[in-house]
């Protein structure tokens, strides 16, 4: 970790303080998250470039939500990753490990240097996350449609214990074609799991084509409402809009689905909105261009 002052405060006591006591104004918090997101994007892309594999399109679309969660909204202690009172995060679109691992390293769960082992033989940093090898990972994902049911289980445990931790899960949008999500959606709506927030990374592209050309998801907001959820649609790259939705400042009586409209490959001009960059790998020239664009 090069500059300690850039690291987020991870004191649970501080994070647990009433939000009104958070000194920094929204713009300042957003600027901090944006700095972190820029770092995560660049690091994730370097991981993919060096490993010669990965899923850069989905890494880049989910980065701003991840950064908002880890560098402002969530309470956690990287030195004590299984503290019972922690907020939980599950990356259900488990292939976006470039973004996840970069975020976890920046958040202090493991040394940044370890990111260079991404997908190398015997590395803990598998293409999909393993909770028994990487601190901060809550459940092993990779096959789609697994994260939300597990998040629902955690949220039920929190409800039974009247605990104040919150549970966050990011799914891809194409991932919502998996039926297990809708089983979990019904349970969450029925049990009014107000401690649960789902963020749908709505970049409108799945592996091979647009979601709407493959099996249409729209009207997506109406689907979640019908399942008993609050639904908010937001620009998934607008940190100032994401912050109040994720920081717990709005109390709810049911689970929240944030449809985060995002751009697959966000920040790299030649990747943006191109399905082919779902698991494309840049060549040296493309990588150099991308790193320049991501400095901005």
């Amino acid at each position, binding site marked *: 970790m090069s500059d300690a002052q850039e690291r987020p405060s991870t004191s649970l006591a501080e994070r647990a303080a009433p939000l009104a006591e958070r000194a920094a104004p929204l713009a300042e918090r957003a600027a901090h998250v944006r700095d972190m997101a820029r770092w995560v994007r660049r690091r994730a892309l370097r991981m993919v470039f060096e490993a010669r594999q990965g899923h850069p399109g989905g890494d880049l679309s989910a980065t701003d939500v991840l950064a908002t969660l880890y560098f402002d909204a969530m309470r956690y202690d990287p030195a004590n990753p299984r503290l*019972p009172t922690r907020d*939980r995060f599950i990356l259900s679109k488990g292939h976006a490990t470039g973004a996840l691992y970069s975020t976890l390293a920046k958040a202090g769960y493991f040394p940044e240097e370890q990111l260079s082992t991404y997908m190398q033989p015997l590395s803990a940093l598998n293409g999909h996350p*393993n*909770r*028994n090898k990487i601190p901060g990972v*809550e*459940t*092993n*994902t*990779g*096959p789609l*449609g*697994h994260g*939300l*049911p*597990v*998040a*629902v*289980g*955690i*949220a*039920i*445990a*929190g409800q*039974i*214990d009247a*605990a104040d931790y919150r549970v966050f899960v990011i799914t891809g949008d194409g991932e919502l074609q998996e*039926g*297990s999500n809708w*089983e*979990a959606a*019904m*349970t969450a709506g*029925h049990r009014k799991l107000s401690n649960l927030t789902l963020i749908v990374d709505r970049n409108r592209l799945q592996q091979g084509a647009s979601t709407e050309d493959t099996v249409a998801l729209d009207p997506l907001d109406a689907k979640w409402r019908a399942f008993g959820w609050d639904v908010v649609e937001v620009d998934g790259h607008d940190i100032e809009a994401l912050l109040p939705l994720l920081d717990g400042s709005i109390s709810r009586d049911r689970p929240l689905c944030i449809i985060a409209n995002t751009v697959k490959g966000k920040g790299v001009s030649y990747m943006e909105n191109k399905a082919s960059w779902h698991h494309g790998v840049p060549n040296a020239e493309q990588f150099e261009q991308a790193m320049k664009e991501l400095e901005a």
Partner: protein
Amino acid sequence: MSSPAPQAQGLFDCRDAYVKTLEALGADDDRIVAVVNDSVGSSKLGGFRDKFPTRLINVGIAEQNMVGVGAGLANGGKIAFVSGASCFLTGRSLEQVKADCAYSQANVKLCGISSGVAYGELGPTHHSIEDVAWLRTMGDITVLVPADPWETEQAIRAAAAMDGPVFVRISRMGVPALPRPADAVFEIGKAEVLHQGNDAAIIANGTVVCRALEAAAELAAQGINARVINMASMSPIDEAAILEAAKTGAIVTAEEHSVRGGLGSAVAEIVSQNTPCRMKILGFAGFQPTGSAEFLMERAGLSASNIAASVRALVQG
């Protein structure tokens, strides 16, 4: 079910031992929760629900979600007993069992109710004769197949006491209480020798163990001393007990499960690579027709007389 109530014949439904144990554990430890797929009745969990209403989580008819929710409850510090008909709990949710429970090493206890051919008349969709094969190949989940009420209680207690995923295969077919010394101990990974003998070995588990004991009695009367080994712990399995059994020169395995991938296969994997001996694997050859559980067991040769005949054929062959 067309057969008479088990208790009427001095037989027991192991679901009763399961729920009684779970209620006792639940009274002592509020981390114990039960998760069901609309299966409160078939899992006999009405009593648990009445005692601990907030700790009975019914996710409806949604098995993939049920197993994922169980893993999530474990993450939240609970000891989740996820109960459902074994055919759906394992088959419908196999990837959740693999990724969320076994690979994640979640502290989840999966209880497969009415396993094997208990739902005989309902047909192969409801038979669960593949479950042990599916789960034991994962390696990272403990697989237990208790044979009677005492062993069911011990298996549930052992599952609750250990940290990690466990599958307990629970029958509803009537079984007698097996004769055991008062100081008998159940241990995961350890086989139980219920009858001594060095002429051959019968290795069985679940509902077939009582039949294996009957077979041994029949064989003893004919001068053949067959060892009866109860292999409740399928994963991890007691390799030493299997290698000792191989020294008799003849092993018959018998299980209320497919002959592909279950107990017989597990024993053969070990014997064939160490001390090969003659073997006969008794179980179901594939999808079964309709019929009562007893009818299907008899038809597949899982009767005391056929187990005895199989031993004789190996010993005299």
